[in-house]
């Protein structure tokens, strides 16, 4: 369903953000793209969706190339991002209707899906209120619904739990379970390793733009010799980044 081959992105004047990353995600699979801040996770997602042009390499969704047929790719992908906002002066229902239109979903189907998603994500009570009056958690729920309004086979989730409280995070977990049940191909970018371990079927450990390890938890345990993702993650980092420099600071 998602195929990434030797994907590379070089920003002029900066280091290479992504270096020849290759991985595949099958239908019904939840793939965790893990790595510290600046590892190149978000850049990889943006290239898969065709929002950024790769310097080299290739990303495909349902065999459509993200550079050659970006609209076909976009039509098949739902994007959830922690930085995504909402239209302040519209209600959740109007936001969903607008995005339904953008994805050319028939209005009657938009109405039907809005009702289903409002029930699923529990925003029936405030679906006609202006988005500017909603709390962060409520906005996130609307954004989750927005990404599903065209019922895409592929979901890309970029730091979906960032800034959310316990209730908000639980909503995200339920949401991902739901996507799993819907047989969608899902990529989650996060550095919340405990969450990833709980939600994902397979993992890709990204560091400084390179995919260092890839596989199921069991495969990763075998290849790294570490028992959990946190240890694997720390193993990737140089000691200078993880050591607490008490002596150096003279404390």
């Amino acid at each position, binding site marked *: 369903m998602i195929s990434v081959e030797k994907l590379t992105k070089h920003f002029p004047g900066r280091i290479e953000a992504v270096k020849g990353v290759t991985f595949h995600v099958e239908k019904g699979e939840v793939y965790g793209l893990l790595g510290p801040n600046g590892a190149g996770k978000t850049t990889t997602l943006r290239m898969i969706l065709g*929002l950024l042009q790769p310097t080299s390499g290739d990303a495909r969704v349902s065999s459509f190339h993200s550079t050659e047929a970006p*609209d076909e790719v976009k039509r098949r992908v739902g994007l959830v991002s922690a930085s*995504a906002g909402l239209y302040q*002066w519209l209600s959740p229902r109007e936001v969903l209707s607008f995005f339904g239109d953008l*994805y050319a979903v028939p209005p009657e189907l938009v109405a039907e899906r809005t009702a*289903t998603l409002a029930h699923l994500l529990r925003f029936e009570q405030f679906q006609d209120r202006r988005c500017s009056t909603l709390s962060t958690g409520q906005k996130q729920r609307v954004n989750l619904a927005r990404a599903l309004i065209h019922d*895409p086979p592929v979901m890309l989730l970029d730091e979906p739990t960032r800034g959310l409280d316990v209730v908000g995070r639980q909503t995200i977990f339920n949401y991902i379970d739901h996507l799993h049940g819907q047989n969608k191909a899902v990529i989650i970018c996060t550095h919340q390793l405990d969450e990833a371990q709980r939600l994902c079927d397979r993992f890709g450990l990204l560091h400084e733009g390179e995919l260092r390890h890839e596989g199921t938890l069991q495969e990763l345990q075998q290849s790294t010799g570490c028992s959990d993702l946190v240890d694997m993650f720390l193993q990737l980092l140089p000691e200078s980044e993880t050591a607490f420099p008490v002596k150096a600071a003279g404390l």
Partner: protein
Amino acid sequence: MTEHGDQTSATVHHSGRLPRAVRLALKELRETLRDRRTIFTLVLMPLLVYPLLAVALQRFALTRFRGDPEMQTFFVGVNASRQFEAMKELMRFGSEVVRLQSAQNADPEATSSTADAEPEIRFFGQDDVAESGTLSDGLKSGAIDLAIEIEELNPGSQHRFPPHRYKIFHNPGSPRSQAAKRFFEERLVAANLIALRNRLRRGGANDQPPAETSFVATEGTSTQIVSLGALIPLILLLMTVTGAVYPAIDLTAGERERGTMEMLIAAPVPRIGLLIAKYAAVMIVALLTATVNLVAMTTTIYGIGLEKLLVADGVLSLRTIGLVFALTVLFAAFFSAVLLALTSFARSFKEAQAYLIPLMLVSLAPGMLALMPGVEMNSLLAIAPLVNIVLLARDLFEGNANPLFATMTVISTFGYAALALALAGRIFGTDAILYGSQGTWSDMLKPPEEQRQTPQIRTAVFCLAMMFPLFILLGNLPGRLESLSISVRLALSSVVSVLLFVGVPLLLAKIRNIRVQTGFRLMKAHPLAFAGAALMGVSLWTFAFNIVSLITDIDDERFAQFAGLIEQVNQSPLWLKLAVLAVVPAIAEEFFFRGFLLTGLRSALSPWRAIVVSAVLFGLFHVIVRDRLLFERLISSTMMGVALGWVCVRTGSILPGMLLHVLNNGFFMLLSEYKDELAAMGIGTQQQSTLPWYYLVVAAILTGTGIALVMLSGRRVNDSEIAASSA
């Protein structure tokens, strides 16, 4: 939600792009109109500003009328110098009566003109105002405040005030003229009353009154304190730009700031489609703002009774309202596109504001142009952005707008709007703006690394919008070089054709890294296609000729307009005329209209829609000839454009169309060359006749055969095939 595999495309709604575009625009509009900041600019500003402005204006007006020493002197033209004295005597008497009445008046606050010092009246005879023409001309131009025709009614009368008939001409649009009218009316009525009362006392019941007065309103030309024609463009410019600023920023830079832009760009909608919806919303808000402001301003002006400062008779006509609305649309169309283009570059509200403030200041300069005397509209100014709308507005309100310049203004303004939108489409939502990747402005000129086989629609529209002002600028140049011989000028006009229709698109193709062979459809075609095109080329002109003949008398007034030019051109050798007027323009036009433009249009439109749009644009380019508008050419040229477009789409090449076009032009040229011989046969422009029916039958057979051959020559070539063939 339904279980599915990769069936997303099955749920895609195909109810048409237009309803969806309207819904997208409505969403933008709804969002903007709900924003308090829009409401503030749209409604509260006019409600707060105009009452305050009204008070200030009223005080200014009162001060001006009371304190202006010039108002204390009235200039009055009189037709009969012999009766001067009788009138002066009667006015002196009237003034005395009014003064006495005023003295008796108990109300010390009386605001009659007599409460102040008596104005001075300077009488002029017909000879004194000779420089201004007649008395009536003097009144119209404002040289005199009143024109009075005096007629003695009873030459033998022995009364102190013998009866006279006074026909007083006044200008309702001039406050000075109106003050003078009131002054005369008051004194003549007072004098009449007292004179008649005295005569009645003396028993002269049948006596005529000393003054039989009538008033005639004469429209002035420059008597208003503020010229509507000069003021309206500035007001409309300010109102539309004010209305467009906030939504333009909010719908572009605002999208990025609130984090909605990424989701918008992640949707499968072309960026230009999103921008067009935003453009419609910005334009509507700009129009609404201008309308609310205009209504508030007009109400205020009427409310404080200053309407005659702006409108001569104090009544806004439907024509004025219609003109104001049409001009508002033009201003809004221009500003909405330009503002959107600029704000598309901005990553934040602050950055957008920094871009727009200089634009608003620069825009004031053309607005002031209308207030400057001596600036006349010409073909150059008619394509100068914004200046053209301002001058058109001024000329429309002064009643001397030129239809050619008006058409050029409208076309070029929408062209500039398209240009600005195409520019915005290149940058809005790009990763440079979305994620702050390096380089924004430079990206616009950087050719894409990957070569494109065909131009995108926005590149084609961009090229067209650039082409129109250049067409006006360069197209008229050879004709103006009158010192050169006609042959040289003709040769120069071919160079201009090539530069315009070949050079400009080629330059753009180079900049956008478009493959020339496929981007211009310079593809091989089947010999049958050339044969079919040749048959169409030798026959289609007959229908075009008949259409032009049917809808206009081409040899009458129109022919006279070009008679001199035609005479000059006829002195050139036939081969030169054929080369310069038939072959070169045909090849150059095919290169652009069917090559670059039609191919670009086809990237977003269905073949037939693309053919029709390119044909209408082709027709419009043929309407403007030198400094004239030839609307009769629109239909025939558009129909020819449809035929050429069809041949191009059918054969996948512009080469057969070039042959068709050359033959068509060549036959028209030969028709003109041998018009005398044809006239002898009863055919031709001299007789204003259409071609005989048997000509048309033969032509129809040839055209039909040509179409059949083109259809037989092969099938349609689409973009994917071109891409495949070039790979």
